């Protein structure tokens, strides 16, 4: 991709900027019909795979997240690669990637590299992608946790930017991952909460309460016109606890 060129897949983020007059890209690489980008293998999802496909065929928690993205119109056009590239703190697919420790595949004319998620997302709408690089895929681990649960809080029943969203996974060994969106500048993992609960084979009610408290403490939400810091902190703990509960059943 030439420097200064802008990648366009579904347009669900870029075109909003264009329509509002915030962006006037002169060099656009249209990727919607580039078949290779939409390839999908067990451990690699092409950047061009749309939310519609993810909703139908994706790993459980990612499929659940896909179902909440926008509307059918948005899901038919928007892609995982776009979600990753925009790197909104509220990106619906990003907590899943954090939970499974996914990596982002970046292709440049001379080389292809992969960047682990926590090195890729560096700030609000800022990533480690450099000019000239194209996001070509998302790499997933061989083994995915058996139990996965996703939840997203918004102020209406469809088409919402998440106030809080969360993915909890737990595998047979008890290893638990808790990833959250909309509560920090980037998708985040609640490491301390994870550590605490992963070592407990059969968590009790008070364990779950402590787990929720740790999640609430770890998140770094803000107050904006959509919600308050206080609510996001509270809701993150409640949601994480409920999702863990589902994973334990």
């Amino acid at each position, binding site marked *: 991709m030439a420097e200064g060129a802008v990648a366009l897949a579904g347009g669900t983020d870029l075109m909003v900027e264009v*329509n*509002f*007059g915030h962006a006037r890209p002169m060099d656009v690489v249209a990727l919607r019909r580039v078949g290779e980008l939409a390839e999908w293998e067990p451990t690699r999802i092409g950047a061009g795979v749309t939310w519609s496909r993810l909703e139908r065929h994706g790993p459980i928690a990612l499929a*659940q997240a896909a*179902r*909440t993205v926008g509307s059918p119109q948005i899901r038919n056009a928007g892609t995982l690669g776009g979600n990753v590239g925009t790197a909104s703190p509220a990106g619906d697919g990003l907590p899943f990637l954090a939970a499974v420790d996914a990596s982002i595949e970046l292709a440049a004319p001379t080389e292809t590299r992969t960047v682990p998620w926590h090195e890729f997302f560096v700030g609000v709408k800022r990533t480690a992608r450099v000019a000239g690089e194209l996001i070509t895929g998302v790499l997933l681990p061989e083994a995915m946790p058996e139990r996965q*649960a*996703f*939840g*997203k*809080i*918004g*102020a*209406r*029943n*469809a*088409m*919402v*930017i998440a*106030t809080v*969203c969360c993915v909890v996974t737990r595998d047979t060994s008890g290893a638990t991952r808790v990833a959250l969106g909309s509560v920090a500048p980037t998708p985040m993992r609640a490491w301390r909460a994870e550590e605490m609960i992963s070592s407990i084979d059969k968590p009790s009610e008070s364990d779950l309460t402590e787990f929720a408290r740790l999640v609430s403490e770890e998140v770094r939400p803000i107050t904006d*016109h*959509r*919600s*308050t810091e*206080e*609510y996001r902190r*509270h*809701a993150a703990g*409640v*949601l994480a606890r*409920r999702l863990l509960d589902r994973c334990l059943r």
Partner: protein
Amino acid sequence: MTTHTDRRAIQVEGTVGESPLRPDGIAKLKGEFEYAQDLESEGMLWGATVRSPHASAIIESIDIAPALSIGGVHAVLTASDVPGRPSFGLEHSDQPVLAGDKVSFWGEPVAIVAAEDADTARLAAAAVNVVYREQVPLIDPEEADLRDEVFRRMRIRRGDQEVTGPVVVEGYYEVGMQDQAPLGPEAGLAIPDGQGGVDLYATSQFVHVDHEQIVASLGLRREAVRSHPTGIGGAFGAREDVNLHIHLCMLALHTNRPVKMVYRRSESFAGHVHRHPARMWYRHTANEEGQLLRVEARIVIDGGAYASTTAAVLANASYFAVGPYRCDSVSVDGVGARTNNPPCGAMRGFGAVQSCFAYEAQMDRLAEALDMDPLELRRRNVLATGDEMPTTGQLITTPLPTAEVIETLRAMPLPDVDRTSLPGGSGLTSEPKDVVRGVGYAIGIKNLGFSEGFDDYAQARVRLTPEGAVVETAAIEVGQGLVTVLAQIARAGLGISKAEVRHVDTSKIGSAGSTSASRQTQVSGGATLEASSRLRERILEQHQGDDLNDDGVWRSGALVVPMDNLTREVWEETVTFRHPATERPDEDGQGAVHADFAVAGHRAVVDVDPELGMVKVVRVDTAQDVGKALNPDSIQGQIEGGIMQGVGLAIMEELVLENGVIRNPNFTDYLLPTILDAPDVEAVLIEEDGSWGPFGAKGVGEPPTISSTAAVAAAIRLATGKQLNRVPIRPQDISLGDR
């Protein structure tokens, strides 16, 4: 003037009481119906508007040269280019057509541009260099009250002001700023006629009042401007005020080219008035049996920078401050404040929505204090025909089936719990064990038609043509089904089955008044009924017939004038219909201030996840006083749409202001209910003869929004035990603390 309940509806196909399909339905479904934003004209330019980024500022200078120097720009106009009256407004001409020396609200128009295409126009608008000196905006309506920055003060005193009682309940309530958010944004096309005049096709609810303001600001003769009813994508009050109308005409006349303008959504939020945010203090006093002894209220509404219809909205909020209840000791003080917030004006419900949220919350609190069933408390105080309005003392002479509304609601079956449909929807936030159900009731009252002595009338013309009866009117169709029901009324009056409505412009017919205040079916319908009935009478008299139908004129069982012959004659009748006169109030707010009333009640069933504060409105049932249901399906549509807007105000719709600036002027962050947010609705229409509308019909558009918000709030309170004194209720209000 004949009472319209005297007229019998002629039973012909498509008459009143049936639900004939919309005449414009297929065109709309096929995408062939023309809206203002779809209009085009040869050689047309595009307009754009320069708007203030500040809520309050002095304009130090405006440099239009950078904009004019852009290729393809044909005009850049400012305040000094306004040829006639420099300001406009529905109640007072206080709003500048274009700001000259200062701006008073975020988004206030400062300059307008015409260019070859929309993009160039927007670029040019961005290039106009306005130098502002920011001022501290006045954003608190109570501060405005103290400074006497007020559009209107209301004072209502009725009965003995010293009344006391054993049970007293006080409360403070707030309603946030809702927006009409019609899906079709502001749009219009102005075409100069080459002789110094102009034809305007623009989104509007009242073309004659637009016409008046355009003529005044352009300094033209009345005949030089024609304002044409045009396809419009919804209104709900946002299209009563002038917004792009004068601008478009100015640009068209200046460039001598047709000029089109379509507002973008964020501009639309800035460019029209909103529902007044309200703060209300109440005290209800009752005896131990639950009889209301005294109601005191103070209501402050924020009118924003310019008057719009604030005086009338405040009047409504004040006159309906008690609700549909009897009470002989009432005191209401109202303030319509002037601030640097965005101007507020008409939105469906027009002040009565805000009061209802407060007085119904009060009634529930009173019921709790009395340990009485909330419906029983209401039943004991219902306002009915023959009673006096608690606020104005007006004797209610038309039907007001308040008790029946309550009993009907109570009797409607409640839905089962649906464990598959939960708050949070596909967000998977909640499980059945996290969810509590609440059922809440509210009733409300609204006036129909304009009030306080306003000369409220509508003109319609009925003509008999070879294509059937044609109703000519300037009464705007905003989607409510006026074009359907006026044709039904013409059929019922004339007795022939082919009838259609044709919109004509301001030069061809007198005013039909505003499509608002739930009035058009009654007044334009009244004019149509009168005109079609008189036409029938005249035809029969002329031809000495005893019946008129699709075949022609009949006498004693024989066809004496076939329809083909009849339509070669000229047959038309024009009627200006006025509803019963209303009075201006005296200094205590007393008088026969309103033309008619309608009462409605709602019962909301909500499922709440209290820990997260998520709400699903499962069902809203309603009983509504409609007089006579002229088109039951259309009424159902108005009810379901109005309830959805009421639900929106209850749980998700609010324009968030910060220092007078709207933080969420877009559909991502101003949340409109989606199909997944829609409750099931069961509606019972209560019909009772006696209103002056055609065949006894009452207006139906606003009552669905009056008490639906209050019912949803009541249901959430019952489910959660939270006070919830403010709407919209947000998740944090339910899950954290006590509000």
